[in-house]
């Protein structure tokens, strides 16, 4: 049986563009996620659902509480192809559940990029997570969800 996890659209003003008279909302799609730790489970964190991300990205103090199997070290590269804009990460296997106010998925295992800084948001990418879900997204009607299973 499949389970449906609600997602949330958030529109942001872009203050940098607003100052220049360019007005359009920046739209993000959020989900919520709990991580398995060595002692139990975290509470739910808001996370950006990023269909452009091959893997999840987790900040240091969040993944360091998790029950994680470290696999390798790596360098995360973003939109700017310069060495100074890259981010050193570890690659590791985590266990998590996707949640909303009422429902939780079964446990999911994902290989994630584990940042060495807290200055990154939680990003939800494909490996282990989006690849095992069906994403429904209807921004005009402000409705989005993941179906799992």
């Amino acid at each position: 049986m499949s389970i449906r996890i609600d997602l949330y659209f958030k529109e942001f003003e872009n203050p940098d563009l607003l100052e220049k008279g360019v007005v359009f909302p920046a739209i993000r799609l959020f989900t919520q996620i709990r991580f398995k730790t060595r002692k139990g489970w975290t509470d739910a964190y808001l996370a950006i659902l990023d269909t452009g991300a091959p893997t999840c990205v987790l900040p240091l103090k969040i993944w360091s509480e998790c029950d994680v199997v470290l696999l390798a070290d790596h360098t995360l590269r973003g939109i700017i192809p310069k060495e100074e804009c890259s981010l050193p990460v570890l690659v590791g296997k985590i266990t998590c559940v996707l949640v909303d106010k009422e429902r939780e998925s079964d446990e999911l295992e994902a290989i994630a990029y584990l940042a060495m800084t807290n200055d990154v948001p939680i990003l939800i990418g494909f490996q282990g997570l989006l690849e095992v879900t069906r994403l429904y997204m209807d921004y005009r009607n402000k409705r989005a969800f993941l179906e799992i299973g």
Partner: protein
Amino acid sequence: MEREKMPSEFWEDQEWALDHYEKWMKEYPYHWIAVVNKEVVAAEKDPEKARKVAREKTGKRHIPIVYIEGHIHVY
């Protein structure tokens, strides 16, 4: 291991934090904020520290901790 349910206030506070995100971008850019009873009770660079400070201040166990970007990023 059993997963403890978060109380309804947790979800309300998390939603409230998201609803006011633009305000937090100005006040707490690139910080992790802790929200209790629709109030920001801690803002730290470290999410675990934000939780610790918030727990000490409020005595609450389940506290939403939300990362606040300072600008709109493309990841």
